[in-house]
């Protein structure tokens, strides 16, 4: 178990006032909230910040932690709580809010929260907690549909009362035409119920893995298509990749770079299905031989052309 420097995590000095700590927490919480943030490690950071705040906002926990920290521990160091480290401090129960679960480091110091919940009154039962996870799928999976095996890390409490993560694999059906941001609900795959209550559900939020060719916007698919200057100028019929395979597409004569052509119904399936948009990118052949250079010079002579006329230069 590693020592955690809660001040470092919150980006505040150990002398910070309770108000400063609160402000720092509010700001970091907004920044790293998993529903708001695009940072890849947002969830991890958000939990860490929540845990740090849990300790620093509570004067008693903070004082005990400060005492420990003055003992010379540094972030990342292997840590075991000194015996009776908390002697003389009082952690009045019920101070736990916010984050769902805390690290082993936290629990070694302040104990586990949530124990005793429902233990007192008889006949208590509750539906298990819903779980949420994000899964990355390929655009091809969304186009064809299919089954994907996903591995989820499930936190569990073992016989000794420690939180351990167990890996659970699930075969998930990817519905044809699913789009980014949609949720798949798996009934009964959430946390176990208590006192005979039913288990919660598992919600999987789908996002697409980046694809080297295609980009998705809703059900529409975008593809950059390199074309030669003569294909763009004279028009051509060329083969274009789509998620469903190659199709022939007509490039109208006189096309410019950036022109967007639509292949109706070639996007992700659905009712209505999405379209595929093909964005033309004109690529010029390299002038890497005397013959090619001569040809470019001849073009300049035969077709004088100022593409910057509108810029007034």
């Amino acid at each position: 178990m590693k020592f955690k420097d809660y001040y470092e995590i919150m980006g505040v000095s150990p002398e910070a006032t309770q108000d400063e700590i609160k402000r720092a927490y509010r700001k970091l919480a907004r920044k790293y909230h998993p529903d708001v943030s695009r940072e890849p490690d947002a969830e991890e950071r958000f939990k860490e910040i929540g845990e740090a705040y849990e300790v620093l906002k509570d004067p008693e926990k903070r004082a005990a932690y400060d005492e420990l920290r003055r003992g010379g521990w540094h972030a990342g160091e292997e840590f075991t709580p000194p015996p009776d480290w908390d002697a003389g401090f009082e952690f009045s129960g019920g101070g736990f809010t916010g984050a769902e679960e805390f690290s082993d480091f936290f629990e070694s110091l302040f104990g586990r929260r949530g124990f005793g919940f429902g233990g007192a009154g008889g006949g208590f039962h509750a539906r298990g907690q819903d779980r949420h996870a994000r899964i990355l799928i390929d655009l091809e999976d969304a186009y064809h549909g299919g089954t994907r095996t996903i591995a989820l890390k499930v936190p569990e409490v073992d016989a000794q009362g420690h939180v351990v993560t167990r890996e659970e694999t699930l075969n998930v059906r990817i519905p044809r035409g699913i789009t980014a941001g949609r949720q798949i609900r798996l009934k009964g795959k959430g946390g176990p119920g208590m006192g005979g209550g039913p288990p919660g559900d598992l919600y999987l939020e789908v996002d697409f893995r980046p694809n080297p060719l295609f980009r998705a916007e809703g059900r529409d698919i975008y593809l950059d298509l390199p074309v030669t200057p003569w294909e763009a100028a004279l028009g051509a019929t060329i083969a274009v990749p789509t998620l469903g395979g190659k199709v022939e597409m007509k490039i109208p004569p006189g096309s410019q770079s950036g022109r967007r052509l639509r292949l109706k119904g070639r996007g992700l399936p659905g009712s209505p299905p999405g379209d595929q948009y093909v964005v033309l990118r004109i690529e010029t052949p390299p002038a890497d031989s005397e013959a090619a250079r001569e040809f470019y010079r001849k073009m300049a002579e035969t077709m004088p052309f100022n593409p910057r006329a509108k810029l007034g230069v």
Partner: protein
Amino acid sequence: MTERELLQELLDEGVELTLAELCRACSVHAETVLAMVEEGLLEPRGTAPAEWRFPGPAVRRVQVALRLQRDLGLNLPGAALALDLLEELEILRRRLQALGGE
């Protein structure tokens, strides 16, 4: 492939939930959903609560609104505004991506 028969449901516009189903899905009381409808955060089809039908993505809207309220101390109008802005941001980001901007 014994897991194949998972009870699985795609929560897209093709799915419609009643008030009771939405409440169960999000583990909230009807009052919470009523307040969200009042705030314009949810827009069910139908006039009276008994006839309300919520589209599948409403589940996610409720869940995110609850998390924003709980974690960031927002009130309901604040959560509704944040949700709308987040959704708009997401659309713009995808569009930017689709145009090859990033």
